[in-house]
């Protein structure tokens, strides 16, 4: 099992290369945004927003377009942490913290773990399906519809309000108590289901003894 996992040095190389690419692509955008900020064309919150949006969109494009699946997963981490920043800009620290903990920590580790256990080492570079043009067309139509709807709608000039931890907790555990309990049950069932599903059964162990491979 261990020899199938990429070495830490490979991860170091991926991260260094990724940082170089991100720096080369990000620096012009940063310069443009800084110029706009210094010329007072955009306010400081907007500057942070556009910077964060750049990270989110670039990471999302990387996760969807990169051929190397480990690179795609690392790009996803950038996107999810950028989304946490967006939640901070939306004055909702609690969701931002949950995003970092659950996505930045749990989900990405789980996904990388899944990649390693399936095909990261055997075929780290995958090709996409033949339905790419179709997928592109549908995505453009859906995105265009949403964007048109957002531009068309008029909500007036609204001022965001800060959601405090206390208010959030009161609302969550007073008004949404039953959904919270249901979510707890759902998580319980999902995780035990995942374990039962991915576990090697006793028959399979006897039929296919797999050398030094760890029993999952």
């Amino acid at each position, binding site marked *: 099992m261990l020899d199938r996992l990429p070495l830490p040095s490979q991860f170091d190389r991926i991260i260094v290369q990724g940082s170089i690419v991100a720096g080369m692509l990000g620096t012009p955008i940063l310069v443009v945004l800084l110029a706009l900020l210094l010329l007072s064309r955009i306010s400081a919150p*907007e500057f942070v927003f556009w910077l964060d949006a750049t990270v989110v969109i670039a990471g999302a494009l990387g996760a969807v377009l990169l051929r190397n699946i480990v690179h795609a997963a690392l790009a996803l981490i950038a996107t999810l942490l950028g989304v946490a920043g967006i*939640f901070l800009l939306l004055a909702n620290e609690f969701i931002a913290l949950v*995003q970092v903990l659950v996505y930045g920590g749990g989900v990405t580790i789980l996904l990388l773990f899944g990649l390693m256990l399936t095909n990261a080492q055997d075929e780290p570079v995958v090709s*996409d399906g033949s339905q790419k043009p179709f997928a592109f067309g549908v995505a453009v139509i859906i995105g265009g519809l949403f964007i048109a709807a*957002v*531009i068309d709608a008029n909500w007036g000039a609204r001022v965001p309000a800060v959601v405090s931890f206390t208010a*959030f907790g009161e609302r969550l555990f007073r008004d949404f108590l039953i959904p919270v309990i249901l979510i707890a049950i759902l998580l319980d069932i999902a995780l035990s289901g995942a374990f039962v*599903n991915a576990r090697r059964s006793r028959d399979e162990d006897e039929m296919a003894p797999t050398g030094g491979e760890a029993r999952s």
Partner: protein
Amino acid sequence: MIPMENFLLLSAVLFAIGFYGVLARRSAILILISVELMLAGVAINFVTFATYLDSQAFSGAIFALFVITVAAAEVGLALGIVLRIFRERQTANVDEVDTLKW
């Protein structure tokens, strides 16, 4: 102050990118990653409306929390299934898992 439309446009773009990934990718785990992108877009939308339009009750923020939780459960379960399929068929490519295809 940041206009509300900025966040909505960002979430729409994120959703569309994730949608493209779901349709174009063939590795099951990369499809999962794309679904995560779509869910992130939806969560941004929820929190935006909660913060700008519903700052007293902010139900949207609570729903975003539930979206994140259910997504975590979904990833755990889906990875279990993918590992199972990989063990049975030595592939995580969804095009090759076509026993039920008519």
